[in-house]
C-alpha cells in the first residue's frame, strides 16, 4: 500500500515539478527573435513562448539543442530552483 502511495507521490511530484530557465534573457542577449530561435532548434515559434513563460518543460533532447544554440551547458540554462541573475552568478564565482 505504501509502495503504491510512493509511486503516486512520485508521479504527482514529477508532473507538477516546474523547470526554470533563462531562455528569454539569453535569446535577447543573442538578438534572436522567437521565430529565429525556433528555426534553429526545430520547433514552432509558439513553443518558445511556452518555454520562456515556463509553461512547458522541454525534453532532454530539446534542452541540449537549446544549450548548443547558446553555447552553454544545460545546467546554466535550466534549473529546478528559481534562477538568480547571471550577473550575480558571475560575481559569486569571482569571489570564490
Amino acid at each position, binding site marked *: 500500500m505504501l509502495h503504491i502511495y510512493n509511486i503516486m507521490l512520485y508521479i504527482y511530484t514529477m508532473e507538477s515539478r516546474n523547470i526554470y530557465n533563462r531562455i528569454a534573457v539569453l535569446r535577447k542577449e543573442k538578438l534572436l527573435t522567437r521565430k529565429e530561435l525556433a528555426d534553429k532548434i*526545430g*520547433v*514552432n515559434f509558439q*513553443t518558445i513562448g511556452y518555454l520562456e513563460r515556463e509553461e*512547458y518543460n522541454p*525534453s532532454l533532447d530539446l534542452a541540449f539543442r537549446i544549450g548548443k544554440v547558446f553555447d552553454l551547458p544545460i545546467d546554466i540554462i535550466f534549473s529546478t530552483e528559481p534562477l538568480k541573475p547571471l550577473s550575480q552568478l558571475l560575481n559569486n564565482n569571482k569571489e570564490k
Partner: protein
Amino acid sequence: MALKKSNNSRKVGVALTLFSLLAMVIVFEYYKIDRGHINFIIIEIIVFIVFLVSFTKTFIKTGLWKFTHKPLKKLDEREIELTSKSLRYAYGIFTVLVLGLLLSLAVTNLSIDVVLVASLILFAHILPASVIAWTEK
C-alpha cells in the same frame, strides 16, 4: 484582460458550434415525425448557417482545425503532447457519448438516420480541436 476575453470568445464559439450540431440532429428528428411542417426546414437551414459561421470562426480562422489534422512529423514535441492529450480526452468523451446514444436508440427503438451519422462524423473531427480550444490558455 484581452487574453481572458479571447479565451471566453473561444469557449462561446466551441459551445455554439457543438450546440448547433446537436440542434441540427434534434430538428431533423422532429421533421421526420411531422413531415408536412415547413418551419422545421427553415429552422434546420438557420441552424446549419449558425453552425457554418461558428465553425469557420472558431476552428478554421484560428487554425485549430489545421493544427489537429496536421501529420505527426510536422509537429514539435509540445504540440505532440498537446494533441495527444486532446485526443485522449476526445476519445473518452466520444466513446461515452456514442455508447450512450446507441443504448438510448436501442431502448427507444428509434432508427439511425444520415443526419445523425454525418453529425457524429463531424463531431468526432471537431472534438479534439474543441478540447484544445476549451483548455488552452
